[in-house]
């Protein structure tokens, strides 16, 4: 049985009249093990591979190869299926016309590997229909409690309306998790991010078809390692208090505040999907009614809940003090993640402004990003930013937009912006 532990990083001391408590809650899961094999057959995996015309011969060839590699990583006993996506979603395996998933074993693996050889580059892109098809296929094995899909796309969602995609995402939300990967530079990060955020997955860029197999292997391995399905973070705040936000801040940035569902009047639950043996950090901010100097109270109980059972909890505290040396300090972890969140926002806003032709806004935002990355010593992000802007004064954040920018560099900067780095205590 998996074990969860928590650690809290915060400065609990608030000045006279202070109301906002910030804490980083580090949650570590151990003993998650591999996805259960056989028995109840509780896990299901679907590969969704873009087979639109834009994939071309090389893209399709690499897609076939990557799917085969992925099939090899799916643990025996796991329910699985393969969907080929263009302007419609087609179940390639277990077979055309069928909707029942099958368990992985030597025979089905071989059949599936043969089936993916049938991928043909043809048609358009309608990711909503792929998601809807995946949901339909998942529903064929209702006993499954842990559902995961990989969605690979190489283009924009041009064969359905934005609303259609939204409806499809809504239909899948809370039902299965989905990691989204974009191949090349013609897909839309915003679209992919919308899908992945809602479906508790990640977004990343695969710069060239040759890299697909590695990425698929990594994603399936990660998915197979997730032995704990549907973990919720529950946040209790006292009467009269307000939960300002709940963000996952590591390993990647994801504001989950809007995913809240009320458990009781003082407690809200936020879904975090399935967990492997891993550590995730959450930034919880609570606004309290101010109390008098010397008073101490609990600002929040942050609980890890699996199927309505509380596994562990962390206590976030508040103590009002008139000692400036205590109240003015910002916890290192809180400061670092606050900076990383601001950096990500500056990069995304800057690139969005640039795409919209707002060069002044883009220059300002990206300049701010350079400034933060420099101040926090984030060399990786600084070097990514350098490919998009010329830096005149890093500390002041004075930059000029580069005349010609590789689209892939820009996209890599965008997708990397939400990856955070954990710092040591």
């Amino acid at each position: 049985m998996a074990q969860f532990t928590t650690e809290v990083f915060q400065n609990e001391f608030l000045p006279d009249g202070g109301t906002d408590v910030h804490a980083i809650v580090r949650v570590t899961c151990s003993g998650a093990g591999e996805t259960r094999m056989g028995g109840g057959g509780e896990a299901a995996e679907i590969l969704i591979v873009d087979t639109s015309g834009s994939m071309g011969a090389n893209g399709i060839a690499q897609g076939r190869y990557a799917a085969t590699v992925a099939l090899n990583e799916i643990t025996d006993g796991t329910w699985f299926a393969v969907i080929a996506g263009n302007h419609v979603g087609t179940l390639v395996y277990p077979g055309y016309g069928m909707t029942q998933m099958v368990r992985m074993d030597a025979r089905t693996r071989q059949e599936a590997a043969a089936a993916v050889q049938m991928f043909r580059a043809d048609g358009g892109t309608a990711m909503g229909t792929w998601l809807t098809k995946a949901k339909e296929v998942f529903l064929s094995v209702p006993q499954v409690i842990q559902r995961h899909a990989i969605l690979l796309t190489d283009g924009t969602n041009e064969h359905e309306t934005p609303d259609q995609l939204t409806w499809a995402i809504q239909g899948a939300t809370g039902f299965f998790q989905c990691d989204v990967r974009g191949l090349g530079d013609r897909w839309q990060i915003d679209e992919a991010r919308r899908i992945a955020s809602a479906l508790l997955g990640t977004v990343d860029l695969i710069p060239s078809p040759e890299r697909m197999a590695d990425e698929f292997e990594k994603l399936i391995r990660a998915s197979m390692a997730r032995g704990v399905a549907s973990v919720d973070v529950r946040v209790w705040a006292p009467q009269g208090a307000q939960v300002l936000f709940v963000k996952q801040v590591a390993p990647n940035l994801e504001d989950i505040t809007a995913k809240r569902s009320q458990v009781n009047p003082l407690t809200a639950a936020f879904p975090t999907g399935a967990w492997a043996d891993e550590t995730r950090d959450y930034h919880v901010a609570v606004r309290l009614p101010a109390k008098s100097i010397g008073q101490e109270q609990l600002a929040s109980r942050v609980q890890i809940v699996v199927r309505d059972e509380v596994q562990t909890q962390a206590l976030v505290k508040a103590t009002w003090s008139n000692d400036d040396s205590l109240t003015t300090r910002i916890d290192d972890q809180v400061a670092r993640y606050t900076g990383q969140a601001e950096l990500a926002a500056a990069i995304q806003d800057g690139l969005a402004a640039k795409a919209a032709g707002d060069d002044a806004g883009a220059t300002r935002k990206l300049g701010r990003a350079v400034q933060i990355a420099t101040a926090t010593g984030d060399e990786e992000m600084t070097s990514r930013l350098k490919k998009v802007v010329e830096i005149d004064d890093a500390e002041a954040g004075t930059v000029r937009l580069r005349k010609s920018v590789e689209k892939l560099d820009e996209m890599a900067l965008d997708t990397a912006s939400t990856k955070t780095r954990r710092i040591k205590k």
Partner: protein
Amino acid sequence: MSSPAGTPGAGASAAASAACPACGAERPPDAAFCEQCGHDFGAALPTPATAGPTATRNGETQTRHAPVRAQTADEGLESPLDLGWTGPVSRGAATEVDPAPAAARCAQCGTGGYLDGYCDTCGAKQPDPRDHFAESPAAWVGGVCDIGRRHSRNEDAMALLGSTRPLQQAVLVVCDGVSNTTDSHIASLAAARAAREVLDDPVPRGMGLPDAVVGVITKRLGDAVVAARQAVVETTPDVNAPTPPSCTFVAALIDEGLAVVGNVGDSRAYWLPDAPTSEPRQLSADDSFAAEQMREGMPRKDAETGPNAHAITRWLGIDSPDDLTPHTASLQLTEDGWLMLCSDGLWNYCSDAVALRQLVADTVAGLGGHGLHPPTLAQALVDFANARGGVDNITVALARVGATAGPPPVASAVVEPAAMPANPTAANPTAANPIAAIPTSAGPPGATEASPAAYAPPQATTPATDAPETAPAPELHPAPDPAPSPAADREDSPDGTVHD
């Protein structure tokens, strides 16, 4: 909504229901934490070695999730340092301790219950037994140690002993942890207890001459200082820490009617005789910047309210000065009165011995028939200091010479914080003590109201207090809001002290 940590759909855990592994209380099937002691049913039992008072170091809180355990020590052996200390347990008298989950009712909001040391509705902290405790080892000896109103930690400590026969033997020790040092709340309690242990041994009676006995006890007090300092040193987490734990020391040993007191730092001992014709006096000598200035001629009022008034010149700790010989004084307890040891949390509001005697006399009178019950009087004096602002931790330890009285019926000698009635208006849980409701003055109404910050006796017994009832005595500092001065070298400045 009594249990946000509860598990709505947790039918699975029902099989494991029965008793709490920590305290044995009944365990409801859907509870994640024990209603009685807060034990986390999902966690292993903590080992006693890891159990200790929670300490917050600096601002970077490493939250310890040690669940509170019910203490099981017999009366007299229990310790506020024990995690989950819930007050004395009467031997074999479980019915006297309210078995209903009165402890689960939050003293702040009155609606929630304590789950894990905090209210499940308003988040208020469950009172820490270290924050307020009383000792009453004998009918004539008792004291109260209280966090006050403004500090987040009680760094004062107290350790008492008393023989059943009055004046045969008593030990009173008060230590005040220096508030800008690390973990001084642990250090001060360790120091007080170490000193009590040294002072506990019977005094040899062979030599007969009173001066020789005084000499033996004086030396014993010196040994107690050394032991107390050693105890502080042993709590020092890191010998290279820039602010190692430290505390003051004042102790009294009473032996067959002879009292000898000794002190290092600015915690005090007073002799307060009942008879108005007898002279009350401060027995201790402060090791403080203020005292040095007074020795140089500065008026007490100016010295004790000056910028460095609370800077002490000697203390117990790994960084203490070489000479820790206590200031000592002795007297024969031949007339009725009170021997009082207190921290500056009390004398901040009433420093002068004459005024203090008056305060005690009025407080005794105000307590009706129970004023001569030492812990009841000590609590009332703590309430007095809290009512004046409670800027610092407050400790009052008393030995009564003369007639004593029993406790008031509503309040036991030790008021268990968790059992206190809800009082939403109380800023501090200790203020909800029922004793607090008892007026501290039997004098004319308005006498105490006229001087909110410092004690004004209701009657003119000395020229200095001969003030009209409608206005505070000119020497007094009303100081309406006790704003602590961050510039104070050691502890928060008092908001006013009485005249000399």
